[in-house]
């Protein structure tokens, strides 16, 4: 696909446009009909109508969250696939999302922590711990770190963490109500507080990730080759690992474990941008954000609730939009067939 390569810049621009369109779509589409005039007036409305309140309090936070989380998960997945040279790597498959989720549930259930600030730190901690554990388990035994062992370690840890999480929830009905919707991976009904708290971490991680692009490309040629070319691979891998933890942990703190975005998006980005991570990573950010926005919009239509007015005005509490399908379910519906395709291809190789 050399002809595609020439249009990498054009493609990036088109992805940006797709992102903007999806963002507008996320504001406009849904249970409550919002017409263009209402949408345009939102910004200067002094006495907002009910529709405008919905846009302000529900739809804008939701679209912003989808954009930031989607971009972060896409980039985290790309970093992981590059670092482990494993096409199946992603925060979801390697147990990083599950570990972060477990720690958040432990925080709210055992330590009775409910503030988004502590949630965020527990999510970072959980992401770091599970990432380290998968890496450790994957490098045991003969042959060191192999893609197969990493994937197996990730799959078994995901299962383990999920079981623990469920065990805690079953024994603690109070927590269960609070986090069940969150656990399915949802960006609906969140207020912006968590996002505002996490955004500085995201921004740092985005900048670091994008500036690592060239070094990551060299690292994908193999650690020995990269070292021979004068790269301090330990530094590059360390910084990339911190970025992954910030991106995946922050995403879980905001939206719960949303799977498979980090898996699919890098593959799509690579099919457009080739092998150069200086291009792949920005594509992942734009496409990941677009994908999550679209999946979220899709979730609003998949099951149309029988009774109207479920989309309420307040931003807090998860129950208000519980008639919708959580976005994590949508990404899974799209992602699983994709995952199987990649798995079959990489095993046959």
């Amino acid at each position, binding site marked *: 696909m*050399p002809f595609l390569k020439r249009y990498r810049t054009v493609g990036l621009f088109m992805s940006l446009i797709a992102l903007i369109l999806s963002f507008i779509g996320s504001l406009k589409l849904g249970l409550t009909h919002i017409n263009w005039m209402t949408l345009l007036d939102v910004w200067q409305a002094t006495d907002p109508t009910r529709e405008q309140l919905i846009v302000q309090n529900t739809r804008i936070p939701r679209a912003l969250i989808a954009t930031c989380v989607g971009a972060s998960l896409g980039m985290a997945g790309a970093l992981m696939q590059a670092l482990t*040279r494993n096409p199946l790597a992603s925060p979801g498959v390697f147990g990083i999302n599950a570990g972060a989720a477990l720690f958040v549930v432990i925080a709210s259930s055992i330590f009775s922590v409910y503030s988004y600030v502590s949630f965020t730190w527990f999510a970072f901690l959980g992401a770091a711990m599970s990432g380290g554990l998968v890496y450790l388990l994957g490098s045991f035994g003969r042959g060191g770190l192999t893609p197969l062992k990493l994937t197996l370690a990730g799959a078994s840890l995901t299962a383990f963490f999920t079981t623990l999480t469920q065990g805690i929830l079953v024994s603690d009905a109070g927590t269960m109500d609070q986090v069940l919707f969150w656990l399915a991976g949802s960006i609906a009904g969140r207020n912006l507080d968590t996002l505002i708290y996490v955004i500085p971490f995201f921004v740092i991680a985005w900048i670091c990730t994008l500036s690592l692009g*060239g070094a990551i*490309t*060299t690292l*994908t*040629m*193999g650690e*020995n*080759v*990269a*070292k*021979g*070319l*004068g*790269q*301090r691979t330990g530094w590059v891998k360390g910084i990339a690992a911190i970025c992954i933890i910030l991106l995946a942990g922050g995403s879980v703190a905001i939206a719960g474990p949303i799977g498979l975005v980090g898996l699919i998006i890098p593959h799509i980005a*690579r099919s457009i941008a*080739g*092998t*150069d991570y200086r291009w792949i990573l920005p594509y992942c950010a734009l496409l990941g954000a677009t994908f999550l926005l679209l999946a979220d919009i899709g979730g609003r239509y998949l099951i149309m609730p029988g009774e109207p007015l479920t989309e309420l005005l307040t931003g807090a509490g998860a129950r208000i939009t519980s008639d919708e399908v959580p976005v994590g379910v949508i990404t899974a519906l799209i992602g699983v067939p994709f995952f199987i395709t990649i798995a079959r291809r990489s095993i046959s190789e």
Partner: protein
Amino acid sequence: MKPTLATDRLTLAYGSSPIINNLNLTIPKGKVTTLVGANGCGKSTLLRSLARLLKPRNGVILLNGKDITQQSTRKTACEMAILPQGPVAPEGLTVHQLTKQGRYPYQSWLSQWSAEDEEKVAWALEVTGMLPLKDRPVDSLSGGQRQRAWIAMTLAQDTDTLLLDEPTTYLDLTHQIEVLDLLYDLNEREGRTIVMVLHDLNLAARYAHEMIAICQGNVYSQGYPENIVTEELVREVFQLDCQVISDPVFGTPMCIPHGKGRILQHRKLTAIGG
């Protein structure tokens, strides 16, 4: 003769068991040097440590007289290139992109891709004969072409010294000769120092000015192949009985292993082992 690479009381180990113990070694500048030895004798380990891919347990490695741990790895990469054993290119990476990676040590925030970078890449593609294949993905090439593409990358690095770990492994005879000829030419024309681990003793003897035979983590002997390749060396280093004759074409030492196999009728009388 000024050495390009030297070690001083070098000790290398994986875990607790030492592989190389207190080794002193000098590798001459502007020559082709081959490291030979049995499997597991430590020759690849030694090459990896010379290329700073493996940290010494003890002792120092000197590149052009300077301790390689004392200068930035990027600077070292401008003086010495390494082609590790069996490198794998990411799916879809083209020969041109691979070769461009060789300019990595010259890139930084301040100095982006320059005319000199472009020139070195073009030269590397040219001398390796990869110019017609430069837009092909590396994973679609034959083994020999692939190895040449990787060599193009190390050449784009524009270093005086080039280390290669078993560059001919998994290649058929034609491609082995193709790769070794390329390296030999580089030394002849450009005076580059080439250090490589080779499995094939006969090819090692034919292409090398200097041969270093490694046995159990030590240098068994070092020098011109015609001076050091003897039946005794092969017995000690490879635990193999053989007969060393002079190559009928090149005159370099050639080792004919004893052992079993068909012996043609008219040879029976002179055959080994009676």
